[in-house]
């Protein structure tokens, strides 16, 4: 779909990462519903109306399958696509070790303070789903 001739004024920073995000946004990985999930959690961001649900199945302590669904901006949706890639096939405990910094690093473009909630929504939903709501309001939410 990408028209190589098209050059946008908007991409004066890190065009490759922007391409990657656009690709995640238009063709999200692990998008959809998951039947028979062990963990299902859904949350929204009332200020922008974004909604996100993450469902996963584990086998022998490993995340065997993970899906996300919902609607939102390029930042929140591509973050979910990236995050689910990151933890799929990993031990469930990997979820605990993912920090805000690791999440932002994986997104790869500078995230301003106004978009931090979008960038961290998927991680929040995943952590709250796996460890309960109390797992989130810790170091990751000190914005």
């Amino acid at each position, binding site marked *: *779909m*990408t*028209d190589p001739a*098209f*050059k*946008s*004024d*908007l*991409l*004066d920073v890190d*065009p490759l990462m*922007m*391409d990657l995000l*656009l*690709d995640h946004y238009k063709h999200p990985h692990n998008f959809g519903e998951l039947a028979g999930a062990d963990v299902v959690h859904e949350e929204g961001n009332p*200020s*922008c*109306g974004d909604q996100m649900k993450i469902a996963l199945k584990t086998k022998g302590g490993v995340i065997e399958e993970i899906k996300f669904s919902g609607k*939102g*901006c*390029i*930042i929140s949706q591509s973050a979910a696509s990236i995050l689910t890639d990151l933890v799929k096939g990993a031990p469930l405990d990997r979820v605990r070790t993912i920090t805000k910094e690791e999440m932002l690093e994986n997104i790869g473009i500078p995230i*301003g303070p*106004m*978009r931090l909630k*979008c960038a961290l929504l998927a991680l929040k939903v995943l952590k709250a789903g796996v460890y309960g709501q109390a797992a989130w309001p810790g170091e990751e939410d000190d914005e």
Partner: protein
Amino acid sequence: MTESALRAAPAAYDVQRVRRDFPILARKVNGRDLVYLDNAASSQRPKAVVDAVVESMTVSNANIHRAIHTLGYEATVGYEEAHKKVARFINARSWREVVFVRNATEALNLVAGAWGLANLRAGDEVVLTIMEHHSNIVPWQMLRARLGVTLKFIPVTPSGLLDLDAAARLITPRTRLVGAVHASNVLGAVNPVGALRDRARAVGAKFLLDGAQSLPHMPVDVRALDCDFFAASGHKMCGPTGIGFLYAKKELLEEMPPFLTGGDMIATVTPEGSTWNELPWKFEAGTAAIAEGIGLGAAVDYLSGLGMERVLAYEEELRGYVLEKLLAFPGLTLYGHRKGEHLAVFSFNVDGVHPHDGANLLDRLGVAVRSGHHCAQPLMAALGMDNTLRASFYLYNTKEEADHLLYALGEVSRLFVHGR
């Protein structure tokens, strides 16, 4: 300019000269000229307002009213004079009908908390419009919980105009107050408030207007409107933040109990009880936002100097220009603006572009717009709108800036459709 444009906006309105009054408009954002189109959220302030605030703080700073010394006298005169300027600006009968508060939100809370609490009983109806900003909904919901009053909402037609037929049915002899947003912060629609007022009067209900969006853009005459209450915020009309006002008819202010209580709003205090200060001080408890109040007076002077008829004519010309361009933009859905009177406030979506991303990327090109639900969730739900982008123009915006908005929207749209 074409001949018809010259007729629409008198040649004497020199927007480039107006722009020079606003120092912030000269700055760059992300390396681009700032194009500030978030005026429905907050306008910029002209140098005259900034200077008035600075002067009040550097020359005449003291607490008002009981001070005998020179600074206290000057501050008192300046602050009272600001009330008089606002009163003249809205054609109130008396400056004592103008109560300074923090903003329109506080003004509306004052009406609900003082007039509403004292006058409403279980089963009484408060009729609002579905177009209200949250600030004219939530205070009444609090009263509903506390007193058991009934809240009713006048719906909008699919084209985003108030449904006056429904209003006629909803306003009944049990209705004690009809409250309406004068101009919508989402759609820009200027509501037919005369029809609502007449209906309210016919059943003996009080009539309240939320003028936060209308007053910055058009001449307002509270006597001609014949409203009982009119609320506005200074920061949307070239004034500072932290200052706004409630206009109310004197008889109502006289009979209403105070809202916030304490210092300055009393005449006498004994351990047994208190009596209230004269208007408007009865409703201005505690040390006021003195410099900000004086700044609001300067803002009103500034607007009066431009002339609100001319401001309205200029903005209407600008609205027509922007409207035509937005309607021609491929994949853009514009809400409202089909018929009826509107301000140059445009809510829209562009196919494939989430409003937050749109606002974020527009900002990279120097364009400041708002995205989200604009504190009017009931209206958004009624019109099936999710989040939108909103571009709201003001007296210093230009057609060139509108062109830049359209150019920037094109860039954003192409990015999401074609990729880089």
